[in-house]
């Protein structure tokens, strides 16, 4: 419990650093939101008036304190470009990204762990080599190439699935799954390869240990040895990669979101950066950083739950 409290308290300095970093680093980038809003024909006088209306004419320190006081009040401000509340914008874009991430991690984990275990079990044999070769190929092909090929086959040539777009589960499970299928498969392919390789390596490490030999000597079935004894002890690196995968997907599924036109956080971030929409960028950075920290904490706690050798004090 004390470990948990200490870890939770450690979140605050990390988030403070993120707040400072997000705000001041963004201000170093060249670009003028007022010019982006006003368009090509705006005069310097008009730009100055827009800057004034948006509060961009104030000192950076003053803008920072305004933002921090907004965060303290649970408000992330409003988009400089659209004028909509940042919390509303992020909330609307969170759904597709979260679903994409959750489904991708679910599919990847369910597929990759058995593949990795089988590869470890058949180490050195043809099936192991085939799996390792396939994983190298799957990890090496760019995501957008996989996406376009799947789109061409399953949405254009065989018009089974939609090319693009997102439907909320609230609209019905059918449309939701149809729209998520290709993006999830696209993103899962490299992740399956990665998790399978890590699982194989970690399992090979564990399978050579004495207690595995003891388990086998006791007459346990191979399935029980692999999945009940070896896999939990091999879990730490697998959990780490799954945790990091979650965090990376939440912040960085931009290519898949663009190819399949999912209105998620990745696309929002790129749009906001190109428009120098500071409150939106800051909001996304804050949120994804917080998620990253929480996921890391969850992974650390899961180590102890799965591996009896791990104890935190």
């Amino acid at each position, binding site marked *: 419990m004390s470990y948990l409290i200490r870890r939770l308290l450690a979140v605050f300095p990390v988030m403070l650093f993120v707040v400072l970093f997000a705000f001041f680093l963004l201000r170093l980038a060249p670009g*003028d939101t007022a010019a*982006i809003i006003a368009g090509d024909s705006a005069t310097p006088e008009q730009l100055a008036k*827009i800057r004034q209306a948006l509060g961009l004419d104030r000192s950076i320190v003053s803008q920072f304190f305004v933002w921090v006081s907004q965060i303290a009040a649970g408000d992330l401000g409003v988009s400089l470009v659209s*004028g909509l509340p940042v919390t509303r914008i992020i909330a*609307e874009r969170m759904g597709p990204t979260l679903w994409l991430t959750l489904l991708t991690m679910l599919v990847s984990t369910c597929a990759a762990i058995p593949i990795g275990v089988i590869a470890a079990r058949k180490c050195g044999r043809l099936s192991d080599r085939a799996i390792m070769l396939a994983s190298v190929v799957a990890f090496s092909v760019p995501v957008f190439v996989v996406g*376009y090929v799947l789109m061409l086959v399953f949405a254009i040539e065989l*018009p089974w699935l939609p090319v693009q777009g997102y439907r909320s589960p609230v609209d019905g499970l059918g449309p939701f799954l149809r729209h998520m*299928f290709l993006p999830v498969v696209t993103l899962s392919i490299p992740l399956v390869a990665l998790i399978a390789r890590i699982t194989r390596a970690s399992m090979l490490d564990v399978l050579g240990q004495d207690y595995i030999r003891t388990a086998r000597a006791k007459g346990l079935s191979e399935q029980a040895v692999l999945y009940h004894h070896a896999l939990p002890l091999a879990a730490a690196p697998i959990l780490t990669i799954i945790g990091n995968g979650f965090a990376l997907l939440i912040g960085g599924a931009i290519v898949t979101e*663009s190819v399949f036109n999912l209105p998620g956080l990745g696309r929002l971030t790129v*749009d906001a950066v190109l428009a120098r929409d500071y409150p939106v960028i800051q909001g996304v950075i804050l949120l994804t950083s917080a998620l990253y920290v929480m996921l890391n904490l969850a992974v650390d706690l899961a180590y102890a739950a799965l591996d009896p050798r791990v104890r935190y004090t």
Partner: protein
Amino acid sequence: MTVLVRLRLALALSLLSLCSLPLGPALAGGKTIRAVMHSPLRVTDPILTTAYITRNHGYMIYDTLLGTDETFQVRPQMADWTLSADKLTYTFTLRHNLKWHDGQPVTAADCVASIRRWAAKDGTGQLILDNTAKLEAADARTITLTLKKPLGFVLEALGKISSYPPFMMPKRVAETSPNQAITNFIGSGPFKFVVKEFQPGVKAVYEKNKDYVPRAEKVSWTAGGKRVDVDRVEWIVMPDPQTQIAALLSGEIDMIEDTPFDLIPLLARNRNIQIRGTDPLGSQIVGRMNFLHPPFDKVEIRRAAMLALNQKDFLDALVGNPKYYQLCGAMFACNSALATDIGAKSLFSKNMDAARKALKASGYDGTPVVILHPTDVGVLKTHPVVAAQLLRQAGFKVDLQAMDWQTVVSRRASQKPPAEGGWNMFFTLWAGSDLVNPLVNQNLIGRGKDGAWFGWPDDRKLEDFRQAYALAMTPEERKKIANDMQAYAYDQVIYIPLGQFSRQSAWRKNLSAVVDSPIPIFWNMSKK
């Protein structure tokens, strides 16, 4: 059964089960046009920005007092007008049955407030207000505008189709500061903006305004009857061009406003797809030099640079297929009322020897030419590369600096020397509708550091031409002034037009009656 076989079977079963699932209400057809526009709608106040997408959004939900037809004639739209014999007083009378989207009647007081908000931002509006003795609502349906002296462009300005069109809004909305974004989108136009479905960067949705009473005349550009034949129009943002093409082929969208030239062949083979340039005024590539700093502060060096550049190289790099572009020397846009090639001859051929000689004779001392090179916008990234190559061939020393477009936007506003964060040359695109006369063409403002467009030429003669054009009362007078102004602007190399091209729209053939216009319009269009 091996693991791979099991996996394959699972995939096939999953696909089959997904295919059997119902498609859901959002794709249930109906009379909804789904279009991918040339850019995402972000700013929703058409008086706050000159962005074309925001102007086009404005035409969906707002109406204008006057419209412009395909012969460049100004026509009545919300109002008819009369002009007094002394040419000082315009009287506009609103049509019957004009209603705001909330059901309230449109009044003259609403329109006066809208004109004032528009005029605070628009150059032609400012000229009108500067010369206005009285602008008032004489009664609920009558607006009177009394000038201090006759101006020839009042109707043209109120019916214009370039950026900042004078859209009419309810008085309570129009009284918002012109530098502050409006948050209420009540208009009186043919569509209503569905605010609750608006997601910047994702989609904008418009519903048919069932109370809209169209004019009886045939539709022509922004004039004539705006008859809406569909229930909804959705502007869907799709950042990936390849996905746009696939979505059009699969029927998930009905239209792409601006089809990437290199992907047109993928659509051209499909019998269900129509491809056409719908904007008769097209877009122009424009090269702009900085008049404040060497080397382009000297007209002789600007002339040498212009000799080095030729339109074909720029158009080939950007468009490729000559079917979609034309060599065009008209500063007021080819196919427009003021189009002429006067002064542009050198741009139609390669003159590298002449450029080298002119540069040598100009006394150029090797000062590097800093060219801003945006690398993230497809239609803007080729011009600086072509220009750099041609200028180098002519003997210029060129410093091509790569950056994103938003950095260009901010950097080009810097009046500092190039070595301190300024610049010497940049390239952009203008829609032809924003070039059509000396009053809207921003490149031809000669008010120097404080009032001219980026590059800041300080040229009294340009302002004299603009003033003369504003006062000219006949088309013949205007044409002569425009010709003289263009000849002068080429002689002084105020800017360099580098050719005109037609953006190609693509739509499925179940859409019909797509109207050619400088702005994309969704009235008149129907869907089977």
